[in-house]
């Protein structure tokens, strides 16, 4: 008797699903086009140096040339900014991961006085908006003579509470037996950490590395107040300065492409880490 109900239901479900599948493509593709359009605009405008903009003609690659890129690289400081950004992001990734993983190991596996309070103090700082700390941070760095220097740019961004939190979560799952085994074999604290604990955290290191890199690559407010001379700008600040100076649209867009491309290629290669890093850290 059950055969009467089941095929009917199955047919209803299947019908609903297949109809949905077809229709689902339409909005998905439409939104995909809308999502891509600004990127398309960026690229296409960067290839039309010296051309008057007229729509819709300018949206097609009729006057294709790469002279805007040449102008951006030769005339401006774009390559310098790219290098600065690479230093800002690259050095920060290495140092954040190092400091956070060391501290996270102690917080996860060691006992020390005031551990719980200290840890939750750090985590509670996630609730304090960065903008409140910005001004005293600026004054502090200024007093230390760090304005418009690499270290002044990098050092204040290294205390990353999210990195500590995620690393601690991960390291606390490393079995104690593994660590004890290392110790019994005569490894010192430092070797135990580097050779036994750290290899276990590779997935989270990669994810966090991507997160920190992306965050620094796109950071704007801190570099904006911290850097003074165009020689020390990062890409975001430099791109803004081009825009503010009314440099030709094509050159500005070429600089925008240069800002975007490294992240784009990184995203193509490490897509799953990008998605995971943004998903677990919760903030852009």
């Amino acid at each position, binding site marked *: 008797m059950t055969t009467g109900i089941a095929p009917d239901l199955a047919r209803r479900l299947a019908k609903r699903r297949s109809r949905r599948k077809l229709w689902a493509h339409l909005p998905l593709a439409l939104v995909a086009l809308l*999502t891509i359009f600004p990127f398309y605009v960026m690229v296409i405008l960067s290839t039309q140096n010296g051309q008057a903009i007229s729509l819709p003609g300018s949206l097609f690659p009729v006057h294709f040339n790469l002279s805007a890129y040449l102008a951006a690289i030769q005339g401006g400081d774009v390559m310098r900014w790219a290098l600065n950004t690479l230093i800002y992001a690259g050095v920060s990734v290495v140092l954040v991961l190092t400091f956070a993983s060391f501290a996270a190991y102690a917080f996860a596996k060691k006992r020390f006085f005031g551990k719980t309070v200290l840890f939750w103090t750090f985590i509670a700082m996630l609730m304090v908006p960065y903008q409140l700390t910005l*001004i005293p941070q600026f004054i502090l760095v200024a007093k230390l003579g760090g304005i418009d220097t690499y270290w002044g740019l990098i050092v204040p961004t290294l205390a990353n509470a999210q990195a500590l939190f995620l690393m601690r979560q991960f390291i606390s799952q490393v079995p104690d037996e593994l660590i004890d085994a290392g110790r019994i074999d005569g490894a010192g604290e430092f070797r135990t950490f580097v050779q036994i604990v750290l290899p276990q955290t590779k997935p989270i290191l990669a994810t966090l590395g991507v997160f920190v890199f992306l965050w620094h690559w796109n950071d704007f407010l801190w570099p904006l107040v911290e850097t003074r001379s165009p020689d020390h700008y990062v890409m*975001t600040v430099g791109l803004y300065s081009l*825009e503010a100076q009314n440099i030709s649209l094509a050159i500005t867009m070429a600089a925008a492409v240069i800002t975007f491309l490294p992240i784009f290629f990184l995203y193509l290669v490490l897509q799953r880490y990008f998605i995971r890093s943004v998903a677990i850290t919760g903030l852009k």
Partner: protein
Amino acid sequence: MSERATHMPHGRETSLEAPGRRPLPSGGEGGEGGEGDKGGDAAVGVAAAGPRHPAITQAWQRMRRNGTGMALVFIAPYVVLFFVFRIGPAAAGMVLSFGSYSINGTTHWEGLSNFHALFTDPLFWTSLRVTVVYTIIAVPLTVVVSLGMALLCTRSIRGIKVYRALYFLPVITSLVTSSVIWQWIYSSNGPANWFFESIGLGAVPWLSSNSMVLPSLSLMSVWTRFGFDMLILLAGLLAIPKEYTEAAMIDGASAWQTFWRVTLPQLRPALFFVVVLELIQSFQVFDVIYVMTRGGPGDASYSLVYLIYDQGFNFFNFGYASAAGVVLFAITLVVSLWQRWVFRGDGT
């Protein structure tokens, strides 16, 4: 471990314990191992004088056993950085909101005068209104679009992964880059107006009119944010057991009813998380405004964080800007506590 190496933690510990202890009186819960550690701590002072003293050796042995000394070496760089560059400035920001700072480096106590100035300044109320209006438009718009896209993305159709990867592109793009592009899209001869004119609706003053600038910025924020929110909602949707929706359908529920009565209640935690995140993000809107409108036209997009920046770094009213920062903190805190409270009530 060499003799030299074993000394290191001793020497460092004195300086390290201080930040660890500071939050204790207010926090109250000092950790269970407090008593034992204190013994070790007391011994440290004499450690340099005579490391061979049996009592000290004993204390060192105990610390070594539970790894206290080494733990302090491990946390040292992070703790120092965090106190100097995060907690210190945050506390200083709150103190500064009750004072004034002049360029020569002196600070004066001003009591509540910054807050008085802030609350009687029409510009502050403008910035608060701008921020609230932006939030009211941007957050629901972004969340609804994200939810819709998440629902569409649950379908197992060909190429869905490509779609998802594409939607994520704006999330990884810097807001400055996005702003530069969108400023052109919104410009009077830009593609947005070209499109509106060619379908016969006429040009829209996207960024140049007081009434349109916030909706325009909100619309752009949908583009920058939905890929991210969608991902979280999608994860939430995929976690709902299929049996739930199928059971509803067996009972004869329409797709619409299934969505409202089954899917949405199940999705509540993820949805709530996304809303809170968007609220906080929207309240801190800055990059986009700085690049695209500089608070204008007039002060129609003069947001709270833009006020902090403008007062702090254009006018060097550090005390006044810090007071605005404290207001931002208070708002963020209320949203965060609300989140805590809801999640506790939920049992999730």
